[in-house]
């Protein structure tokens, strides 16, 4: 991760202990033997302001039950990133393995469970790629971002333009 983020602050909020890997990924291990990594990398979809995309990956041996501590840890990391960066954060659902619906549901559950009320603005949409595949997407922005309206307008325009057939 190229962007600074305070592990101390994350670990004050997160139920799982989060570490940095040597490669700069955020990493934690769950009670059910799952290792999860998170990173924030630059995004090109939003150009009106600085924007990043969040990437989550995991390694496991069997399907875990619904783990509230994973949700709370991911939200602690996301919140801390947004506390330290007044930029737009984009989640673009991975579609290459046919599991996008499950991913979308999970991410929506996590975000909707979060009381971002007056601090953050969040919008879900879908982005149709060149192959006509619907990619679930979300954007989260701090409410005090002076470019909030422009960013949301641009993200909406991206989504609407790609929905139209050429």
């Amino acid at each position, binding site marked *: 991760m190229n962007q600074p983020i305070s592990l101390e602050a994350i670990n004050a909020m997160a139920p799982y202990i989060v570490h940095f890997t040597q490669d700069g990924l955020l990493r934690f*291990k769950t009670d059910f033997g799952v290792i999860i990594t998170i990173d924030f990398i630059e*995004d*090109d979809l939003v150009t009106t302001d600085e924007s990043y995309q969040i990437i989550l990956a*995991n*390694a496991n041996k069997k399907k875990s039950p619904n783990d509230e501590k994973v949700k709370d840890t991911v939200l602690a990391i996301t919140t801390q990133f947004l506390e330290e960066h007044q930029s737009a954060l984009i989640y673009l659902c*991975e579609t290459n393995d046919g599991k996008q619906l499950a991913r979308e549901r999970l991410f929506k559950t996590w975000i909707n469970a979060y009381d971002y009320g007056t601090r953050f603005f969040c919008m879900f949409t879908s982005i149709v790629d060149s192959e006509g595949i619907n990619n679930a997407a979300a954007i989260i922005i701090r409410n005090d971002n002076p470019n909030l309206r422009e960013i949301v307008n641009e993200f909406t325009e991206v989504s609407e333009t790609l929905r139209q057939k050429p």
Partner: protein
Amino acid sequence: MDKTQNQKREEILKRLESTRERKRKRLAEMEEYLRKAYKEEFGVEPKYVGAL
């Protein structure tokens, strides 16, 4: 869709592809790390490694 709209669409598709390419690259690095880390931690290969 008129020509201007088509140009805009093409430009957005390029940005989308660039964003996804960057993500694919980083995801591949993450998966490589996760395979290694899981084996070190649990002594066995993970059954599933991938995006969440």
